[in-house]
């Protein structure tokens, strides 16, 4: 039941931000919504309700490493598309490897805990 609730809340939060991003112009500005904290809002809300503030604070700190990884990921995707002329789907999926490496790289460099 918990995961069904997570699924519905996350789906709604992501759809709301995506809809807003679709309606905004110019496209570069709408792209900001590609990094909207929609999953974070849903997950941190549930974490706060289920486990309390200190658990949510730990997740919030780890999210900072994830956000830095997202920055690296977005730059790599941009270059794969413009410089190496990859299509969107292979570029965005293969760059997930960059996200994983940077996120876990910072995580372990910070001592394996947030």
């Amino acid at each position, binding site marked *: 039941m918990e995961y069904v609730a997570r699924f519905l809340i996350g789906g709604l939060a992501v759809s709301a931000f995506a809809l807003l991003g679709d309606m905004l112009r110019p496209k570069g500005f709408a*792209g900001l919504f590609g*990094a909207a904290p929609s999953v974070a809002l849903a997950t941190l809300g549930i974490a706060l309700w289920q486990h309390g503030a200190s658990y949510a*604070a730990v997740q919030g700190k780890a999210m*900072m490493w994830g956000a830095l990884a997202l920055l690296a*990921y977005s730059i790599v995707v941009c270059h794969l598309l413009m410089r190496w002329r990859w299509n969107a789907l292979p570029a965005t999926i293969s760059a997930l490897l960059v*996200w994983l490496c940077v996120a876990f790289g910072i995580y372990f460099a910070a001592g394996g805990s947030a």
Partner: protein
Amino acid sequence: MIVKLSLSTLKDTRWYEYLIRFVLGGAVTAFTGVVSSLFGASVGGLFLALPAIFCASATLIASHEKRRKREAGASGRRRGQQAAALDAAGAALGSLGMLAFALTFRLLVERKETVAFIAALVAWTVISVAAWWIWRRIRAFRRVAGPRRPEFAGRELT
């Protein structure tokens, strides 16, 4: 350029594209919950910034641009790549906002929970918009100052 809100752009998106984003968003949120319960809050926290939804949205944007160009009689492949790259550039700027969101939430959540959410959202908005504005100013300055690199030409998509 002024930021505009246009309802007519929603016509480009098909019903199943909304469904894909809803399902992906829900799946990533549920997946984050599974990771947190298996590996702890800190590993789960990393996945709050997983760009899984970005893969879908960038691909949809590229396909919309391709479709538009095809209807005009061109292949549209390059235009699709440019539109997706512009979305990725926006996401890079938005990731700075996400960093501000996480930092603000982390600092405030143990003091006042509701305030932490509101302040984090405000931080995301302010930093993202400021980063975008600075980025536009730099691009405008470069355009005036000298020629751009050819591989990054064509970013004037709006």
